[in-house]
């Protein structure tokens, strides 16, 4: 069923399995980006598509307790994840595991049907979920 749903934004992730975030690399500057910029903002050269790491650790996070947009479940936890390949990226966290979030917690990329898009249609979002049994 999920495969019929559209991503919340095009060009951001591959549904998989396994799911992937669509990053990019400037071979001149050796800089990675997410999401993909039209050109490298440092040298204005072309960037190459790369798959980003699907694992990382939580840098910081917070959970909204009321008024979440896009029919996202409340509490709606979001934050920044330090991916294993060095990028720090913003993400939604697993709505089922908000109580497990902590600084430095190991998390894994998922893609699933959560909430709606700007047209009020159910859609796919990327999110990170805490690893089972993992400590900080």
């Amino acid at each position, binding site marked *: 069923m999920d495969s019929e749903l559209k991503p919340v934004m095009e060009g951001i992730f591959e549904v998989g399995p396994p799911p992937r975030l669509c990053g990019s690399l400037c071979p001149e500057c050796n800089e990675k980006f997410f999401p993909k910029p039209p050109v490298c903002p440092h040298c204005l050269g072309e960037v190459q598509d790369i798959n980003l790491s699907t694992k990382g650790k939580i840098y*910081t996070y*917070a959970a909204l*307790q009321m008024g979440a947009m896009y029919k996202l479940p409340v509490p709606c936890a979001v934050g920044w994840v330090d991916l294993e390949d060095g990028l720090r990226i*913003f993400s939604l966290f697993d709505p089922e595991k908000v109580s497990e979030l902590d600084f430095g917690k190991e998390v894994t990329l998922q893609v699933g049907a959560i909430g709606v898009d700007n047209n009020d249609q159910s859609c796919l*979002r990327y999110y990170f979920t805490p690893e089972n049994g993992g400590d900080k």
Partner: protein
Amino acid sequence: MRDVDIIGVGLTSFGKHLDKSLVDLGGMVAIEAVKEAGIKPSEVNIGFFSNMLAGSIFTDFTIGENVLWQAGISRVPVFNIENACTSGSSAFNLGWMSVASGAYDIAIVVGAEKLIVPNLGMMQAGKTELDTLEGLVVPTAFAMRANLHMKTYGTTKEQLAMVAVKNRRHAGLNPRAQFRKPITIEEVLNGPTIADPLTKLSCCPNADGAAAIVLCVSDLSRRYNSRPVRVAASVLQTGSYENPCNLAVWDADRRASRIAYEKAGLGPKDLSVVECHDAFTISEICHYEGLGLCPEGEGGRFIESGATTLGGKIPVNPSGGLLSKGHPIGATSVAQIVEGYRQLRGEAGDYQVEGAKVFMAECMGADKAGDVKTCTVNILKI
């Protein structure tokens, strides 16, 4: 560049103005500022109007021409400015630049906003932004910073709450503030949670309001005003958007204030009084550090020391700040500068900082890549 002075201001109370349109609010303060400056409307060479949300709330646009016409100003260049929370200070920066550059002698800056409307919803960075689509709203963005600040520097929830308590105590002295009843740390902590650790009283309320400023080249200012206030520095910076972002420190604050201090030939120790963008309690704590009022990581202990309360070493937000007045976005950062003008002229009433000589207004707007989109720092002196 030429020296530029403020020669007149106008300011509404912040709160509910249900009987006034946006144009009426802007017109009122424009008239007040022109009258205080003692100029004729025809002497204004250029106008800047700031507003953020009338386009989406009321489907209104190019509002500045309507506002300034109410004050008798037409047949001059008028620009409408949107730059999120710094819309007003961005308009001020352009007004200052237009006079400092020599292009014009007298400029007017007006900011106005009406946010007391049904179903305003959560503020966010824009509905086509990936971060918004992934669930980011403004309170969560600041709660993430607060959590990281507490984790990194040992800042406590009580210290965060002290910002709201202090600013509300100040607001009790300001008849134009929306919420004036004193609050306690316990009331802040025990209120409804918006995004932990931020509770309802940790977040600024909505408001309607307007503010205006007349700027004049210094060579002419005493012709109109016997005690003009000098713009010692006016700076606007954007974020860096480098990866990885640092959410515990606001580099844009540091950068903008460093440039402003250099331009003014002043430092943090020279400041008599500050109005900063306390949209959330954590914001004011981070601004203490970014503006150099205290060392990095010490913001929590700085509020606790009492340094930023009226009568303290460096009073911050003596007007009550956005936490007590509310945040009519397009007016907010014009109003901060109006507060500075009145403080330096000794006209701030019960929240006057005695002997104030140097004032700083700081504001920040919008969110991109874990950084801010805009940051303004303005220094005034007398």
